[in-house]
């Protein structure tokens, strides 16, 4: 074991490690910026969020080194066990958990609250990787396709019951990984994307226009594939189905969605919405980011976030602080940093000889990407406000620890990328 441990720093992927550390400290610096008031001078004030974040970072580093020192086989061996460990935990949080902001997702232990759903992500990633890598046949059957979906659905439903829609949607991010492994066809993915686009479009434009557009597109394609009768019939059927879907959107929107979900969608598409009510968060977020200008107001000079205009300024809306204080320059740099990080993850995943490592790598990339896209997208008004943290940056022990575990398991697997196991 001695030589193994000795080599770990040499074998680990340096770019990912470095970016991880940078992101964590960017997070700490901005949590400090969002919270700092004249009365608190030192960052080592453990009663404040930035002080607590230091503790979380220390815990994360400790956890990271533990993971790196564990044998790689351990993760594939205990993949299911870890998954099945977290399912009863998610159930018990529904019973014994503490409700914070209408979400029953927390175990309160002293002054700290632990959110098990943050850890369920890496557990699910391990289980998915374990299952798919265990399917040795090239001919994937329906049963094989269904099983990973069930693996996803169990924790997703439990988290939904906690009333945590954001994290539930994160579990949806696994479809990217499934798609990569051929467990989900591109057509299904395209259908999901199309359904989402049509949903928003229907709320924006009169549905007659959309149906006219659909019919027009169908006729155009029909002309291009004149000969193939079967395909033409399928296409017409699809067009009718989509039209029906478009008509059902209004019904779903008005009757199925909860009030605050509706509002979060409405604020995106309706300029006239009351900026003091449902539109407040988004409006304040955009004001904070927009007021940053090109170069930003400078570190600790932000006024919108520091003076509490932006809600959840150190967790879900941490990007506002960055946008305000570091401007377009800083926010773009952060986005590029994330893109490099995610791209590097994908590239490394591709290089894995072990299918378990590869699939796990895709899961990690999918989850981090989903968080990144949704979190930043919501602060700048591109996607509805879904309360999920920005990985490594947002304040919170559970999320930081969860993401660290998620990432470092992959980094550990990656040190043995040439091995099959």
């Amino acid at each position, binding site marked *: 074991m001695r030589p193994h441990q000795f080599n770990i720093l040499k074998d680990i992927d340096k770019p990912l490690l470095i970016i991880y550390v940078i992101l964590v400290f960017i997070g700490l610096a901005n949590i400090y910026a969002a919270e700092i008031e*004249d009365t608190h001078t030192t960052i080592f004030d453990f009663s404040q969020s930035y002080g607590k974040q230091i503790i979380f970072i220390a815990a994360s580093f400790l956890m990271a080194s533990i993971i790196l020192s564990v044998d790689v086989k351990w993760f594939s061996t205990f993949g299911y066990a870890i998954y099945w460990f977290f399912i009863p935990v998610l159930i018990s949080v529904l019973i014994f958990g503490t409700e914070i902001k209408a979400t029953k997702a927390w175990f309160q232990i002293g002054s700290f609250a632990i959110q098990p759903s943050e850890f369920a992500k890496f557990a699910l990633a391990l289980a998915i990787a374990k299952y798919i890598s265990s399917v040795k046949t090239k001919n994937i059957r329906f049963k094989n396709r269904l099983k990973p979906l069930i693996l996803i659905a169990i924790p997703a439903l439990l988290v939904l019951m906690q009333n945590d829609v954001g994290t539930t949607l994160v579990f949806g991010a696994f479809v*990217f990984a499934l798609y*990569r492994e051929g467990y989900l066809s591109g057509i299904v993915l395209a259908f999901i994307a199309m359904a989402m686009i049509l949903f928003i479009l229907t709320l924006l434009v009169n549905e007659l226009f959309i149906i006219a557009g659909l019919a027009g597109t169908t006729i155009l394609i029909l002309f291009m594939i004149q000969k193939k009768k079967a395909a033409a019939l399928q296409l017409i059927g699809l067009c009718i189905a989509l039209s029906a879907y478009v008509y059902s959107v209004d019904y779903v929107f008005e009757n199925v969605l909860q009030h605050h979900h509706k509002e979060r969608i409405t604020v995106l598409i309706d300029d006239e919405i009351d900026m*003091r009510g449902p539109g407040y968060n988004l*409006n*304040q977020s*955009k*004001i*904070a*980011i*927009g*007021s*940053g*200008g*090109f170069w930003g107001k400078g570190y600790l000079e932000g*006024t*919108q976030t520091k*003076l*509490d*205009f932006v809600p959840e300024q150190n967790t879900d809306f941490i990007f506002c602080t960055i*946008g305000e204080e570091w*401007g*377009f320059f800083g*926010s*773009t740099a952060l*986005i*590029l940093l*994330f*893109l490099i990080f*995610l*791209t590097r993850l*994908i*590239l490394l995943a591709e290089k894995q000889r072990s299918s378990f490592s590869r699939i796990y790598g*895709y899961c990690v*990339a999918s989850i981090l*990407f989903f968080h990144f*896209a949704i979190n*930043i*997208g919501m602060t*700048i*008004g*591109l996607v509805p406000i879904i309360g999920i943290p920005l990985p490594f940056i947002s304040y919170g022990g559970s999320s930081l620890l969860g993401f660290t575990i998620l990432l470092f398991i992959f980094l550990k697997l990656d040190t043995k990328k040439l091995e099959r196991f």
Partner: protein
Amino acid sequence: MIAIFVAIGVIFIVKLFSLQVLDPSYKLSASQNILRHITDYPARGLIYDRNGELLVHNEPFYDLMVIPGQVGEIDTTAFCNLLEITRESFERRMSEAKQHSYYQGSIFLSQIAKDSYAYIQEQLYKFPGFYVQPRTLRNYVYSTAAHTFGYVGEASQRVIDNNPYYRPGDYVGISGIEKYYEEQLRGEKGVKIKVVDALGRETGPYQEGRFDTIANAGKDLYTTLDIDLQLYGEKLMQNKIGSIVAIEPSSGEILSMVSSPSYDPNLLVGRVRGLNFRQLHTDTLNPIFNRALMAEYPPGSVFKVISTLIGLHEEVVYPGTTLSCPGYYHSRGITVRCREHPNPVNVKESIKYSCNTYAVNLFRDVIDQYRFENIQESYTNWRNHVQSFGVGRAFNNDLPYEQRGLIASPNYYDGIYGSNGWSSLTIMSLGIGQGEMGITPMQLANIASTIGNRGYYKTPHIVRAIDDPENENNNFEEKHNTTIDEEHYDLIIEAMFEVVDEGTGRFSRIEGIEMAGKTGTVQNPHGENHSVFIAFAPKDDPEIAISVVIENSGYGATWAAPVASLMIEKYLNRQVDRRWFEQRILDANFINPEKHPDAE
């Protein structure tokens, strides 16, 4: 998958570019979000009398302001109890404030007195979005000269629309010198920019106060008023309707301007202003109406001094021209009555005894001069002479809302009688100051002043100096000469002296003061005659010229002349020795006629 990452990254960067670099609106929103502009209201300028006596100053009070966008969840019931307002009132004030602005302060409750302020301020931290703004209100040391000062009130929407300086809740002078000298009195507002957080708590000055501006206090006004004379005049006018205007002839400075009945200027200050204003407005005696500037009366016999000066200037009479008065003037079926007096009379005696016959003859001779081709031309010539005394035209001085008075134009008579349908006979009542003639008390005083100056006047005005007693107001230095040759004045002044010394006004003679005056009794179709008197003293180098009008009281010699006499004695001697004479005036009551001293 990498393609999706890059696509999303590009979309984010483009959106950020438009938010942060291209769209300036968020930067504006941000500064409104965090900055609270607290207006620093300067104290309004003080007002002094001509001897440096303080007349008007300011008293502090507090406005409770609200920024609706910063009002969080508050205990409305506790808040209403604190302010002693109803729930409905709270809702109404809140919605008014919201209508004004979400991000700027609006007045929530105005004019909180000092003692309630301390208590409210203590509790205010519980109610984010509310803060207190110190202001000042006018306070009048003496309950006097209400019409001169005018009053101050909140700027109306029209004022705000027309002048970017004013914002809702600002005060602006609405009448009197508060209006005319608004720009000097108000000073310049300053602004203190405070940084506030989302809960509306002030966290300190913005950028160490670099963008704060300091309020400039309003400039003080040094008026021409003599407060002792003003107070005395108002006292004499108690229970009478009418006015007194006293002017220093050499400068045109108004020594006092009394309009009676008047009101306490402190009534039109602060929260009670609206209520009191309505009450004053519905008062049948109309105390708000400034009779000194706005009431037009036919001048009656006092006009004979102008009319006679025109006769002398036009050489239709000479000092020695005599006429025997039969007690009336009669021509073509029209009779003008005259009173019993010694006969025959020359020019001087016609003034002294106020002979109507002589005045009408003289007037007709002026109008019927051969050198004019028609009545229009000759009447215009006469009218120009009259107007050169400042009659029938506005002074455009520093007292707003004056009336111009009326000297009918030839077109007016053409319109009634046709251009060939009128003659000196038609309009002969003008010769005795009746008919189509309206002159304000201010103009009457100016006539006295003009004669005292022997042919010129300086526009009557109320402010002597601004900001500093030495910084004199030079806007009213110009001499306005009459069209009458100066040589004719001495005779008229002598006549006016005799009016007081031994003529119709002898009753009002002051021992040791050479006073020149002219009585007038204005026929009033609606009741008792108006008593009118103009005078100046000392006759050779006058220090005070005065007009007195007392409505529905009787002869000019009986009421107006004694009041003028007392005012002149008060001003020149600084005290009044004729106690019984004074008491008679103080006792006179023409508002409740049962107390009329002459009513038996």
